[in-house]
């Protein structure tokens, strides 16, 4: 069992809801993943449109918690306003805070992120900041009131997997008591297993499942990888060695010459 802001969650996999081939596949993938939390966003509604209503009904029928995001926001004001609108619509103080600083890499504007996080934490939000693996930024976010950190392991949607293991290991070591969720950049179940083996508390992913040839199968595969990585972390991994070490006992070996 895993706990975020006093809420016990059965799964350490958080799943995005975008880019699925159909709402039915999204619903099946959520079920197959075993996730307890899905992300959602707010977008402009057409006059007379009912797009939001359909999605709203769908996510409410999934029986999971919703983590609204501020995806696409490029300024503190945009992010704060979007967070407040999300709180009203989704009825939750949880917010995945994104303040994007670069169009190409979708890298967070960490300066704006810290400022927005402070405003929202003071306003009673439970902030999940989408950040980099920079330790100083992480400290500033904690100082701003964040209780959870969500570092990327590679750019959003890149599927590169953990590109800087040393930084992630360092982050885990520096913040042993802070829930750390890898958000963005995972492409394969083995990537998820790797970061879970490093001791990260959970992963949040979307594209790797939604854009798979079989999103439902991939959701299931990621679920198993997250569980396997977590169990491996808790079981004590063998450190790599530069020399061969026989696994079969050498004592009692027959001598034929």
């Amino acid at each position, binding site marked *: 069992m895993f706990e975020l802001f006093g809420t016990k969650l059965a799964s350490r996999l958080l799943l*995005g809801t*975008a880019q699925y081939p159909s709402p039915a596949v999204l619903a099946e993938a959520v079920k197959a993943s075993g996730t307890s939390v899905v*992300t959602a966003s707010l*977008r402009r*509604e057409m*006059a007379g449109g009912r797009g939001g209503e359909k*999605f*709203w009904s769908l996510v409410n029928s999934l029986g999971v918690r919703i983590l609204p995001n501020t995806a696409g926001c490029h300024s503190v004001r945009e992010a704060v306003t979007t967070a407040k609108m999300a709180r*009203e619509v989704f009825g939750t103080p949880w917010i995945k805070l994104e303040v994007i600083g670069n169009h190409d890499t979708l890298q967070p504007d960490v300066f704006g992120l810290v400022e927005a996080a402070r405003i929202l934490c003071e306003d009673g939000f439970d902030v999940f900041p989408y950040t980099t693996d920079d330790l100083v930024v992480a400290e500033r976010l904690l100082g701003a009131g964040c209780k959870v950190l969500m570092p990327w392991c590679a750019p959003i949607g890149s599927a590169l997997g953990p590109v800087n293991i040393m930084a992630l290991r360092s982050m885990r070591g520096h913040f042993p008591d802070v829930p750390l969720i890898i958000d963005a950049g995972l492409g394969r179940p083995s990537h998820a297993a790797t970061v879970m083996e490093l001791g990260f508390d959970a992963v949040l992913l979307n*594209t790797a499942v939604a854009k798979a040839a079989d999103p439902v199968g991939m959701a299931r595969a990621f679920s198993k990888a997250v569980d396997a990585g977590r169990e491996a972390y808790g079981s004590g991994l063998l450190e790599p060695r530069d020399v061969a070490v026989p696994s079969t006992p050498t004592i009692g070996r027959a001598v034929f010459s």
Partner: protein
Amino acid sequence: MKLIVNGEALEAKAATLDALLKELDYEGGWLATALNGDVVPAAKRPEFQLSEGDRIEILSPMQGG
């Protein structure tokens, strides 16, 4: 009066935000509104008077990562 709704310029008769939503055929408890960059909670829409040139955002839940 002239308003900017979700980035589009339009002419509206409504005097309040609540009336504007009705005039433009928006309905549902899943909508969120902002006026000139500030959130307007649903309960306050009836008392929110609109002015010429106001920028209004009307958002609803969508898929997100």
